[in-house]
């Protein structure tokens, strides 16, 4: 089992003929993801890689394929519209990879998606993967292995690093989710923790946070109140100076709030394992799976 996606997931790629969209659509197909359609306005009726039908609109794509999931690779200025188009067409899980979406756009998109009863992951995220079944997004499939560790992270390459180290140590994953580095995103740590808690095949969770905001503190509180499964946490940005945006739009210490120290303290107070280095996840998770 897994969270959010599995081998029954059917995916439409929004922006399938673009540079990033086409590259990753191929990668998803190679991994075995059921990519059932793509959308590029003006290219309706054509096919991608000779097998995947392309549609002009999300509505056409959903009517024709019955897909339940979409992944968004469209440029930042059009991403908000693409997400709302997917939700309006009846897609229930929307994964927005696009980086650089204006944050004010997300203040309209988030309530719209919620009212449609859909879940948004991202934007500015690597997507997610259920090893051996399905990947939606850009996480490299070969670094993952099926198993019982749930992974949730605000980062991309740092997630790959830690997942790779887990895999090499023989610790496979149920699902790896990248929630993204933007200040306003569709799915947060708590959503993923709650899903991992419910998933019978997840036995432990690795959580990778970073400086900025209070998502990690709320996650720690959730772990304390509601999680029976062990959670190990890490915070990137312990050496980051205040007031500077560390690459991710959301990774910024504002005044004295959002520091790594306060997040790590929250983890400890919640009884979570605390990884001081990425490699520490291996021993901390292994000890908790015994």
């Amino acid at each position, binding site marked *: 089992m897994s969270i959010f996606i599995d081998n029954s997931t059917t995916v439409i790629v929004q922006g399938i003929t673009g540079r990033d969209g086409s590259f990753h659509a191929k990668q998803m197909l190679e991994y075995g993801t059921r990519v059932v359609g793509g959308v590029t306005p003006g290219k309706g009726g054509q096919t991608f890689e000779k097998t995947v039908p392309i549609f002009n609109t999300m509505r056409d794509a959903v009517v024709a394929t019955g897909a339940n999931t979409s992944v968004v690779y469209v440029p930042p200025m059009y991403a908000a519209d693409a997400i709302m188009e997917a939700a309006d067409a009846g897609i229930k899980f929307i994964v927005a990879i696009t980086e650089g979406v204006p944050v004010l756009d997300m203040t309209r998109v988030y309530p719209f998606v919620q009212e449609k009863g859909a879940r948004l992951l991202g934007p500015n995220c690597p997507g997610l993967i259920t090893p051996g079944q399905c990947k939606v997004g850009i996480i490299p499939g070969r670094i993952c292995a099926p198993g019982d560790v749930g992974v949730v992270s605000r980062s991309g390459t740092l997630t*790959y690093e830690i997942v790779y180290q887990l895999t090499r140590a023989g610790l496979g994953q149920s699902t790896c989710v990248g929630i993204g580095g933007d200040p306003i995103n569709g799915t947060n740590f708590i959503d993923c923790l709650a899903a991992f808690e419910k998933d019978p095949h997840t036995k432990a969770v690795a959580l990778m946070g970073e400086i900025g905001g209070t998502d990690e503190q709320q996650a720690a509180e959730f772990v304390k109140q509601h999680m029976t499964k062990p959670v190990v946490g890490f915070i990137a940005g312990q*050496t980051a100076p205040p007031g500077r945006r560390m690459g991710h739009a959301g990774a910024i210490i504002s005044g004295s709030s959002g520091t790594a120290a306060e997040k790590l303290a929250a983890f400890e107070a919640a009884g979570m394992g605390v990884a001081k280095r990425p490699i520490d996840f291996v021993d901390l998770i292994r000890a908790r799976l015994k």
Partner: protein
Amino acid sequence: MNIHEYQAKDILRAQGVPIPPGEVATTPDQAEAIARTFNTAVVVKAQVHAGGRGKAGGVKLAKDPAEAKAVAAKILGMQIKGLTVHKVLVTPAEDIASEAYVGVILDRASKAPVFMVSRAGGIDIEEVAAKTPEKITKRRVDTRYGLQSFQAMELGFALYDDLKQARAAASIMQKLYAAFMSSGASLAEINPLVTTPNGDVVALDAKMVIDDNELDRRPEIAALRDDSGEAPSEVAARNANLTFIKLDGDVGCVVNGAGLAMATMDLVKYYGGHPANFLDIGGSSNPEKVVNALRIITADPNVKAILFNIFGGITRTDDVANGIVTATKANPLKVPIVIRLTGTNEDIAVKILKANGFSASADMDEAVKHAVALAKGGKAA
């Protein structure tokens, strides 16, 4: 992106917010000439992207044009939080009856803009929020509907008991919101919003921060960028599409991805070293980015060792290896380099590096330890 007070005031004035006039000077003589046109006491204010300008001595009252010239001479060229002051705003001094705070921020927890107002104005609002949160009134705005009149009036009455002043403040809130939305801001602040002895409500200071993601679609706002106060290395990095933040350590870091870049800096510290910078070369494969990254890092005289940490997913590690070879052929390195790379095309990358006299490690911890030791004067491997 930060913009200056005078630029934020121009934006708010265009929306109709009452703000006293003001002109920008870059020399003491200009400041004197501007003060003369106002024919009253003036305030000379440093225009620099840093808070706490007043405490740092960057805001001074001048009773006549001669004094305006003298204080401008002191403020221009002054350093405030490491930034050099190149411009001052000269504006008539106002008589103040009361000071309030008005701000709107893009609040990540409420996923919406949130207005914050307080009768305790003119001072650090974070301090007020921490010590006396009951003195702050907050209202969340649903951007699909905008700031409603009743919300603006609630905020107005939170500041003033007098109906006329509450209405004036409510009108200012609406205009501030319009400026916030049309500029793509993540913060817009009037601190202080004052009442004058004859009862007028006037904005005396303004601050705006723009969401960098908005700049592509708002060229008129992007044109307000003033990077004269920034570290030249950061300006060069931005122009090369790299995310770079200078720190004061001695291990220069080149990493792909923001999270891994932060984790690499942290690991340098964990092993007893000091990172010289944050540098994210991004997700795409491009040897040119590596060349630019090395140029920027080697320009920092503090850097005693260079550490590459690349996890190849989308990034092809052979592209990074080619970038390192190209860059170091053009400009031979004067400091040792430690290269850690793993992932996509790792075998090819290692071959390229070995053929050019470099060694590469696949282990992050080993590489970081090695770089820290080299920065401390240890021997190159």
